[in-house]
């Protein structure tokens, strides 16, 4: 340390003189006499732009094929091989990036920050699966998403999650979505990308924490079907919403349902729903109407409470932003100085902050203001989501057949072959009155 300082001191005097002579380089460019030629630094090109457009093309093609496989061919095998292709291409080849799951963050970041323009390929990756979902349900989840394909692949023996738990936990993806968009909009970072448990497997490297989390998800995925898709995926939340109003829906069989209930347990992802019980006792109807009324009235109250509670989160939430974290570290250093090691990132960032603390603090003040707004929105969003789900759980469904829930169905086509009518239609089984049966 001391020697280093002496070294610095000695050279310092030399440098002062040298500086005065030539204001540019400290050591002048050499005059080579032996004909030595300066080598040039290599600059390996990044992945070319047309390849990124090709990826978008593959995405659109895969989506198209998935829709065709689900609605025309109605083939589980086809979807299986398509999802394997997607796992290989979007997963292991493209390392899971850019992916639709994280793309809403880019969209919000682009909308909120004028100095970032969203590339066209990212727009395609974000909007194409949603547009498809508006017409054909969650075809993306079925055969195109590499994370989904991975979970699908490791599913060995699905265990049924109780429906009430499934419905209650189905709000969590929206919370994750809200948090991700808040952090993207304020320019903090892309937390959905940061905490994606499967992408480190595609990259074949990652930090210990995220790899362990990913392993845990995969292990869980061996018995619980697609845990990330059902309970965490924020893009899945968007697709669920879009599927609710989709033009076409996945049906166990295009023919009429004979209520044989053989498909009840066929969905490993808990999406199969029973028909609504026939006829309701008038006593219950009144209670139901009253409950619905109360919950509808509760909705705005929940939103308001959420907005209030959310805005209180702002100081804690803002600390994730690097500029705010720097301001915090700087302010803390003024009152309780910590001796950071020489040349450590913390020491260097504090030095940089000390050069213009007013700018650092002003930036942090601006961001905290933004966060106040954003966290209030987030809280309101949580209230809205929970309120809406409560209302949705109070409305009596109007189903007459056994069919998958529009939002929850991942369109994996596993339920088709569970239906005897479908088997007959596909020629896998002789019909009831078929002379082949004897």
């Amino acid at each position, binding site marked *: 340390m001391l020697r280093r300082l002496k070294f*610095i*001191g000695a050279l*310092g*005097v030399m440098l*002062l003189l040298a*500086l*005065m002579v030539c204001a540019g380089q400290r050591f002048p460019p050499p005059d080579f006499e032996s004909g030595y030629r300066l080598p040039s630094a290599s600059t390996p090109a990044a992945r070319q732009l047309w390849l990124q457009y090709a990826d978008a093309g593959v995405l659109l093609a895969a989506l198209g094929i998935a829709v065709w496989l689900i609605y025309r061919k109605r083939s589980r095998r086809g979807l299986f091989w398509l999802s394997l292709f997607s796992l290989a291409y979007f997963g292991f080849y493209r390392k899971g990036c850019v992916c639709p799951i994280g793309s809403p963050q880019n969209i919000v970041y682009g909308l909120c920050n004028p100095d970032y323009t969203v590339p066209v390929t990212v727009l395609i990756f974000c909007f194409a699966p949603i547009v498809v979902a508006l017409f054909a349900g969650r075809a993306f989840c079925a055969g195109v998403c590499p994370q989904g394909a991975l979970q699908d*692949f*490791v*599913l*060995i*023996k699905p265990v049924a999650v109780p*429906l*009430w*738990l499934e*419905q*209650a936990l189905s*709000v*969590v993806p929206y*919370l994750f979505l809200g948090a991700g968009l808040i952090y993207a909009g304020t320019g903090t970072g892309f937390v959905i990308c940061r905490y994606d448990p499967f992408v480190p497997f595609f990259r*074949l*490297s990652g930090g210990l924490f995220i790899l362990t989390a990913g392993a845990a998800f*995969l292990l869980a995925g*061996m018995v619980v079907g697609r845990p990330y898709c059902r309970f965490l995926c924020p893009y899945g939340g968007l697709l669920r919403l879009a599927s609710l109003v989709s033009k076409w829906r996945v049906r166990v069989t295009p023919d009429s349902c004979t209520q*044989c*209930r053989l498909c*009840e*347990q*066929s969905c490993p992802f808990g999406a199969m729903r*029973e028909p609504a*019980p026939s*006829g*309701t006792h008038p006593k*219950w109807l009144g209670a139901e109407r009253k409950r619905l009324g109360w919950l509808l009235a509760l909705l705005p109250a929940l939103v308001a409470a959420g907005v209030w*509670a959310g805005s*209180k989160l702002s*100081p*804690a*939430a*803002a*600390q994730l932003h690097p500029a*705010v974290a720097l301001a*915090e570290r700087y*302010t803390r250093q003024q*009152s309780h100085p910590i001796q950071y090691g020489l040349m450590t990132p913390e020491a260097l960032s504090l*030095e940089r902050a*000390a*050069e213009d*603390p*007013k700018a650092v*603090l*002003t930036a*942090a*003040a601006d961001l*905290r203001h933004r966060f106040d707004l954003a966290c209030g929105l987030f*809280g309101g969003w*949580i209230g809205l989501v*929970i309120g809406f789900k*409560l209302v949705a*759980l109070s409305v009596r469904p109007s189903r007459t057949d056994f069919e998958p829930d529009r939002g929850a169905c991942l369109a994996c086509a596993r339920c088709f072959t569970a239906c005897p009518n479908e088997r007959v239609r596909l020629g896998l089984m002789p019909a009831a009155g078929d002379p082949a049966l004897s």
Partner: protein
Amino acid sequence: MNTSPLHRALILTAWIAGAFCLLVCGVMVYGHFEAATNDPWKSPQLLALREKLAAEPKNQPLQKEIRQLDLEFRRNFRHRLAMDKTGAWLLLGGTLALVLAAGKAAALKKTLPLPQPKPDAGEQSIKLASRARWSLAGVGLVVAGSLLIIRLGNTSVLPANQAVWQKLLGRSGAQEAPVGDAPVLSEFQANWPRFRGWDGSGAAAWDSKTMPGILWRSAIPAPGHSSPIVWGDRVFISGGTADRREVFCYNAANGALLWQRAIENVPGSPLKMSEAPEDAGCAAPTMATDGRRVYAIFANGDLGALNFDGSVVWTKYLGPIKNPYGYAASLAVWGNHLLIQLDQGETRAEGSKLISLQGASGRVLWERSRPVPASWATPIVIEAAGQTQIITLADPWVIAYTLADGNELWRAQLLENEVVPSPVFAGGFVLVLSPGSKLMALRPDGTGDVTKTGVAWATEENVPDIASPVGNGELVFTVTSGGMATCFGANDGKKIWETNLDTEVQASPGLLGGRLFILGEYGALVTLQAGRELHEMGRTQLPDKFDASPAFANGHVFLRGVTNLYCLGPAVVKLAKQP
């Protein structure tokens, strides 16, 4: 349900694959943790050996040991990288095998669905819906609870509401400096209370007609480069080494050493100073006084306030000061403010700040961070543009602050290299030197960044790198370290005359009435006419070396040489007797 041999084989395969995966994971995780100690980059063992080698450079077996260890670590590093790569693929394969085997086994054991009758389907669905709603409420509570915990565990130190933010950003009024027993301005101006005089200009108004001769000289017991200050009949000077740093007080009339006081045992200051800075020494900053107390600061960051009788009023530790050549900026006083320009850092700001202390108590009135690395120039306080401004110089900023609360008035990015010369205010301009580069005159009436607009004129002729300039409102005088004295017009910066004095000069020149005093490093005191015509009025050779700047007070000239303190006056050369 009997298990077929195929099923048993598949289950076995699945178990083996699973165990294999776990094994590979384990090896990779172990390697990862081991990397903390045998990483060629950060290994503490290797670093410790290198430290040892620095102490004993010729130790051959130690060198061999380092080379051996370094090779081993590098080999391990590459090995680990390769192992992780292979391990990843092995894991992939193992997981594939596990999933295929277990999947096939499960498929073999698949039971067909056997739906049981459900007579109470309706009630069940209602109950189910109710349970779902309550569990959703439960989820909501969990979410709210966790958000509450996050909120309670919040460790943010930044303010929560707008009012506190405004205060933090320094937008509200700062605390008013309390009225102390500050000197009256005329009293202040009649003395030489700080480096280059009460306003830092290096000029005194009175003149003496005859060439000064040595009235007395007194030995200074401790080395230092600080200039003397004078108040009334006292001359104060600081000096010291790494072991001991002191303030000396002499009688201005006869040079008797009245008292000397060490600044020691300063709370917070290390008991022993590590070593004196090679270039500037311990006592380069000149002292300052407000007529009530004298203040002295040393290169290690010890600051002391003493009464005129030598008793210590207060001390303060401002260090350690990270200054490559040694801290040298002198103290400044104005009213009851004691100003310290504490610039530190070799290439970038490392805690540089401008501090204002209340002279009487040492209490911090305000502090402002500065975005500059180390500098060696002393600030001046001027009254201009209706404000009392503190002008500070460093690389690259000239920054003006208000005296009352330290808010920035204006700044200009004009300086480069190592800023040693201090600014002066003359002829309505703030004269700054960018060492070796430019002499510039700035208008002190700007706000914000005046880099482009604040410079009235600039000249690149004979620009000094050490001595500060001096001006009388019509003319500006500079002296380079090589001894080139130059006179410029104060309004336009045009060179009027220049002359080579044939002596190296470290001290800043002084203006005494109509005479320009230049003190050469090897004792030559040259007096030039401070006018438009070049006229050398006299040259005396003093028996000492000088790098501190002269002080003019009481009709006398006080000079600090390397060994002695000199008093020159209009009387005939007569060496005073040492008491």
